[in-house]
């Protein structure tokens, strides 16, 4: 990410376009493509990076014109936010951009996914993250443990926030860690599992941090995990379902995602370890009767993910996928509750961590 002033970057972008227009050229913006065809897996660094394929978008091209306009509109919104030193959520930006173009029945954007995409494009074009452009995502996820931070002048103790824990904001760059007392971080994809561990005072007993999201791991969480790893050298363990989506959630934290490959360096933690359910666990703890039947879409996704550069040579994972197919099943973390409500806190996790029973 560029360290320059984002306001200046946006102005430069605008000037470039106006310059093209003044020269009588069809205005054009180019930026790196962000689809699978332009994703490179850096085997050495073990992260996903963007390739060198560039796409361009020109205004006088029917297929591009709306997206071109959306990108410039989003740039204008961001420009205003930066000038006024305010932050807006993705949803706010959507509403600022959403309107009907006069004299037409065309809406500049119809759905939030369109403005979200335009914002991602702007990130690529300017080299600034959306947080730097004063655009924030919804906060998502919670954390608890023996950590004290300072956020906007407030001191917050993650161990004294009741049953909810601290909500993780989308921008964590400016958070200062005052005191960190933990041996590792346990990250889980399920809020319900986090609540179980929190109630069982797992973090207190095992001197760790517990962190969760609901589904996809947001950028805020990924960056927070990375900072804890980089600044305090805390090992990160991921607790996910035994299915293809759990595996992918893990891989996003470890290697990065296709969509955000340009920001991999700021978000990924190559040393992260998976301690979610494995087929060995299913046998060991006799969970065979607590599995869920796979769907066709699951099988298709397994096929896709197995072919990704960053999976295709990973024997441990391929073995897990193979077993999923063979057993035609998947397992949720909560399946462990079959062995008792606190089985996960009292038995499963301590054993796994003690035995270093991870998948890389």
């Amino acid at each position, binding site marked *: 990410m560029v360290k320059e002033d984002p306001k200046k970057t*946006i*102005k430069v*972008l*605008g*000037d470039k*376009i*106006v310059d093209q*227009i*003044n020269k*009588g*050229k*069809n*205005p054009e913006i180019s930026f790196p493509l962000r689809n699978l065809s332009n994703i490179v897996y850096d085997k050495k660094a073990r992260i996903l990076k963007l390739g060198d394929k560039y796409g361009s978008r020109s*205004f*006088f091209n*029917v297929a591009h*014109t*709306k997206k*071109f*306009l959306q990108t*410039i*509109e989003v*740039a*204008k919104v961001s*420009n*205003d936010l930066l000038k006024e030193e305010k932050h807006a959520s993705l949803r706010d930006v959507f509403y600022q951009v959403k309107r009907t*173009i*006069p*004299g*037409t029945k*065309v809406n*500049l954007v119809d759905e939030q996914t369109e403005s979200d995409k335009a914002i991602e494009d702007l990130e690529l074009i300017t080299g600034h993250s959306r947080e730097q452009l004063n655009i924030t995502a919804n906060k998502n996820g919670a954390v608890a443990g023996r950590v004290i931070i300072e956020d906007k002048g407030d001191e917050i103790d993650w161990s004294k926030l009741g049953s909810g824990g601290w909500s993780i904001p989308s921008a964590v760059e400016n958070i200062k860690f005052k005191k960190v007392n933990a041996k590792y971080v346990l990250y889980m994809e399920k809020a319900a599992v986090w609540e179980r561990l929190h109630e069982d005072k797992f973090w207190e007993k095992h001197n760790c941090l517990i962190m969760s999201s609901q589904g996809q791991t947001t950028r805020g969480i990924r960056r927070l995990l990375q900072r804890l790893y980089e600044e305090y050298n805390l090992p990160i363990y991921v607790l996910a379902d035994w299915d293809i989506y759990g595996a992918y959630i893990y891989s996003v934290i470890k290697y990065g995602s296709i969509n955000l490959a340009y920001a991999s360096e700021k978000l990924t933690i190559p040393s992260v370890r998976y301690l979610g359910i494995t087929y060995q666990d299913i046998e060991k703890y006799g969970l065979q009767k607590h599995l869920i039947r796979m769907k066709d879409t699951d099988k298709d996704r397994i096929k896709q993910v197995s072919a990704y550069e960053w999976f295709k040579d990973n024997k441990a994972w391929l073995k897990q996928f193979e077993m999923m197919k063979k057993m035609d099943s998947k397992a949720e973390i909560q399946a462990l509750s079959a062995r008792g409500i606190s089985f996960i806190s009292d038995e499963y996790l301590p054993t796994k961590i003690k035995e270093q029973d991870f998948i890389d």
Partner: protein
Amino acid sequence: MAQTTLSGDSQKKEKTTADFLAEKQQSISISEFFTKNRHLLGFDNPRKALLTAVKEAVDNSIDAVEEMKVLPEIKVFVEETTPDRFKVTVEDNGPGIVKAQIPNIFAKLLYGSKFHRLKQSRGQQGIGISAAVLYGQLTTGKSTKIISKIGPNQKAHYYELHLNTKNNEPEIIKYEERDWEGKDHGTKVQIELEGKYQEGRLSIEEFLQLTAISNPHAQIIFKRPSGDVTEYPRASEELPKEPKEIKPHPYGIELGILMKMLSDTKSHTLSAFLQDDFSRVSSAVAKEICEKANLNANSKPKNLNRDDVEKIFQTIKLVKIMSPQTDCLSPIGEDRMLKGLKKEINAEFYTAVTRPPFVYRGNPFQVECALAFGGDLPKEELIRVIRYANKVPLQHQSGACALTKSVMQTAWKNYGISQSKGALPVGPIVIMVHIASVWVPFTSESKEAVASYEDIMKEVKLVVQEVGRKLALYVRKNIKAKEQQDRVNLFEKYIPELATSLSEITGNKKEKIQEELEKILKKELKEMLEEVNKHKDVEMDETNVVYGEKQEGLENG
């Protein structure tokens, strides 16, 4: 005995039933025959009767004028004399009719009807003008008035005629020589009849418009009962090709006709009869027919019995005979169809195709199709099919007609026109379909619909498809042009938006950015139009295509 009544009532003598019946059978008069069969002759109701009378007179007139190789000028007057009674007057600039023939042509049923000649002519429709004369006589008791002049320095012949319904002979009520001032040659006929005058569909006006479309070389003037005059102007100075008379081809002959031909022939031997009275029969072919039929080539035609004739009839099918010549046909022609449609239908695109002739059952056929698209034509209605047989419009029984069915069975969606299953397509289209032949197969004696013979429908579909493909190119090109226009409109709307945002980001003046963007759009637009025109050159086959006024205006703009 009165002419027009059955004689049975007037002769009540003691007779056997057989005698009585025999007499009755014999004495069925022409009038009764006519009354019983009026639906076959086009006189089933007062409205149709009036139309048929006009139709017969106009068809005869155009045929007559064309035979003289001059451009037809036809005048049609319809006047209401008393309620439900009309005087129909049709005048032409034809060659006129010699004195002796006038009574036979107008006041004798089936006279001179084309029994022994095969020639594509309009007058094959219905039973002819004499039926209209008879109908007028039966419904009003009035005689039909005819004046005809055969040359500039001649006196005109004036007749008032009745048709004797007992013996089917003309009765001359009045004859005189008259001066016909200002007329070099031509014929005028006036029939008074019961009828009903109505405008709109199936009207005289529709008939005349359809006639004007298929005969753009004719000028037609129509004066309605209201006194309003419509002129259908001439749009082509070129006469259509004159149809040639041909002898029948053996493959197309029917047994009954064969028997009649044998009894009427002037030839003295069977071999000579076959060669002289048929087309495409060489001496070798005649010999082969006689041999295969086991008949002496020198037998006298009149001496052959029914079994012999049957043998000849069956044998003909087994002998290979060259197809008949097709130059006997006179299509309307692509150019004339285009001119006819363009002058009567206001559209933006016209195209026409005439297929090469084909032979079916020993008879040459030719089909043609033309189409008008867009302009004033209604967009949301079923397309209009106008049908012609030997250049004469077919107005009734559209659904039963092979021409309509062929249009219906064409997959119009392939040509960018919407169509529900089993229906005519929907769109701004008038499609004209013409079948020309010396023998048009009709579904019934009323000759209102072409019978659905598979081979004929196949040819009709082919010509409709050809026209459809030409339409498709135009429609697609137009859609492309419309798409381009939509793009331009879109960019025009987007430009101020982009200019506003860029102005806010950069601090440049919005107006200046907008102005520059509009300049670029103009430049881009020029390239787009070149692109469209390139499509036009590549895809559009411009033969037999004309554009309406609107389209030309748009292209220049």
